């Protein structure tokens, strides 16, 4: 009947429109994305090979700190070599190491070096775990406070905020280093990571050295005595952005993307150093590099060095299951350490010094990439 037809049309058109709008608004991605539109929401967004050679898909997983850089590298490398598609799951260093040891990925990535008990978990037929640095990262203390553009935190203030002994912004310990700035009588909301994180590892290793009262130790997951937990560097940045009076630690590129203000910290020599890539790079100057590249600078002693700096590593198998893929990964890394440096600088990461890059290239040659 005409009446029921129009009723049907009416009954379904309104919900259909709502459904379309609703579905269009629904995003399928899992980690919360900061509204600074990071390119990490695409995973492997590279186009399919334009003919000539089969597409090689490589999967990796691990640290969130270098994720923006890795995604950029994959994009640029794919322009050079369209047959190679690399996807990377930014799940955190702990999960990355686990997946690498379980051999569910082709390479892992971590902001913390492999511990001996983790190394022993790799089965003998994969050889040893090869750990090469790809770039340097530094962890900043980002904050959200109106009217305060250049917050200076002495070691005492910094340590007090992280262990909860300093509770308000106008605490004398903070005020004394920030003359001329009115700090409000608002409570400080400290934001930390709720998931296992290499960024937490870098941050807490510095805390252990810099703060005499720090009791919770260092590691990827620790017992925080205060503060809100957020998932991923993305979660921490989003949280700080949304909460007035919040301060938390995050890798520099995330703070840069979400345009958060960052605090100037005091290093070991007592100098207040602003968090910039140049200051962070100074922390790596003259540091001894051991054979497994486990460079540790928890509290740099150089005069103008920013204090919270680390390398980030990629984990590879010495005897990979799929030698062809391993060869592509090694080629990619060689490219990244040479031609990829410009992207590192552009995004706020620390490119490796040349001698270190040469050493890494030599280590990459030890991977058994020839098919037997």
């Amino acid at each position: 009947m005409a009446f029921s037809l129009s009723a049907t049309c009416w009954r379904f058109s309104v919900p259909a429109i709502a459904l379309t709008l609703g579905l269009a608004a629904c995003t399928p991605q899992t980690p919360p994305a900061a509204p600074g539109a990071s390119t990490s929401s695409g995973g492997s967004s590279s186009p399919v090979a334009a003919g000539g050679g089969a597409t090689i898909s490589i999967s990796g997983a691990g640290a969130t700190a270098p994720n923006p850089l890795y995604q950029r590298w994959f994009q640029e490398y794919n322009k050079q070599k369209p047959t190679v598609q690399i996807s990377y799951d930014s799940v955190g260093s702990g999960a990355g190491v686990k997946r690498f040891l379980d051999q569910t990925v082709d390479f892992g990535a971590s902001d913390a070096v492999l511990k001996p008990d983790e190394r022993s978990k790799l089965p003998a037929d994969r050889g040893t775990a090869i750990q090469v640095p790809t770039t340097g990262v530094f962890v900043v203390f980002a904050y959200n406070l109106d009217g305060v553009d250049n917050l200076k935190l002495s070691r005492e203030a910094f340590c007090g905020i992280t262990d909860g002994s300093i509770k308000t912004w106008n605490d004398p310990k903070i005020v004394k280093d920030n003359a001329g700035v009115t700090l409000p009588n608002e409570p400080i909301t400290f934001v930390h990571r709720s998931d296992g994180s290499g960024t937490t590892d870098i941050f807490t290793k510095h805390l252990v050295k810099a703060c005499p009262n720090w009791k919770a130790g260092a590691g990827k997951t620790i017992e925080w005595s205060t503060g809100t937990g957020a998932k991923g560097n993305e979660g921490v940045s989003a949280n700080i952005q949304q909460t007035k009076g919040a301060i938390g630690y995050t890798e520099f590129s995330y703070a840069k993307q979400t345009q958060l203000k960052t605090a100037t910290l005091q290093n070991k020599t007592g100098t207040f150093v602003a968090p910039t890539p140049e200051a962070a790079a100074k922390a790596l100057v003259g540091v001894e590099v051991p054979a497994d590249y486990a460079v540790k600078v928890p509290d740099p002693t150089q005069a103008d060095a920013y204090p919270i700096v680390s390398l980030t590593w990629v984990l590879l198998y010495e005897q990979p299951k799929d030698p062809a893929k391993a060869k592509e990964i090694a080629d990619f890394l060689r490219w990244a350490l040479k031609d990829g440096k410009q992207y590192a600088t552009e995004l706020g990461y620390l490119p490796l010094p040349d001698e270190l890059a040469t050493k890494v290239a030599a280590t990459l040659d030890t991977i058994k990439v020839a098919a037997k």
Partner: protein
Amino acid sequence: MATSTSRTAMPTQRSESSRFLDKGFVWLTGAFAIGVGFVLLAIAFRVGTDSLPAIQKFGLGFLATTRWSVNDEVFGALTQIYGTLVTSFMALLIAVPIGIGVALFLSEDYLPPRIKQPIVFLIELLAAIPSVVYGLWGIFVLIPLLRPFGIWLNGNFGWIPLFSTAPSGPGIYAAGIILSIMILPIIAAISRDALVAVPTEIRQAAYGLGATRWETIFQVILPAAFSGIVGGIMLALGRAMGETMAVTMVIGNSNSINLSILSQGSTVSSLLANQFAEAGGLQVSSLMYAALILFGLTLVVNVLAELIVRRFSLKL
């Protein structure tokens, strides 16, 4: 005679193959039904065996300890159990009256069917929004909206233990409210189905006896639909207790128990979501133990629901 024999011959021919099909259909659906139960038991078994090391080490003290330390290998899930119960209860407190109210409104004839049907559809659509989207909406829209209200509550009613801390953004109150929005469509849809399924004769009989509309609703229709409504509430509670991503993003993930709903907390599912991916050894076992406890909680809730329904439902 010929027709009678052919009539008796044909049914036997048809019934053999159709009997075979009948039996096969019963077996197949029976196998699926048993299979579903089997999957549940298999999951429970696996979670149970994986949690044995933690059960052996911590025993029942696990349920009473709040400390969760990976470095020192001391684990206790009291904070998470408390968080799960508080957020779910808060969600129910908000969603049940609203959900049943919506269901009542939509099952009575206040609106013409033309307007009613799209509204029903839109409410059911709320259930289709992914959990992560709720979490994102919570972080960027809901929490900034709620925070001034929370600060006002703390400022003026801070002497009540429920509002005794200053809200710092994420917190139990945000998780409770998001959960209530997520379970509202379940309660509304199922309650509405239960209310509509009450036979019209009962409604007419009540009107015939001189009952007003509201007397009919509260004294006749609701009791008649009681078992369906409670079933819907239990389903909603199950979803609220297990909800992961949205809660993880707005609850603040702080391992502390506080009577104040404005403070941060942690639930079992948010604990698992945060820590499971990189856990190893005793930590994995402890996470499984926490999951087993959640299993147990859901089982207790469902048994309680069944008992309530049996005791109070009207036999039609």
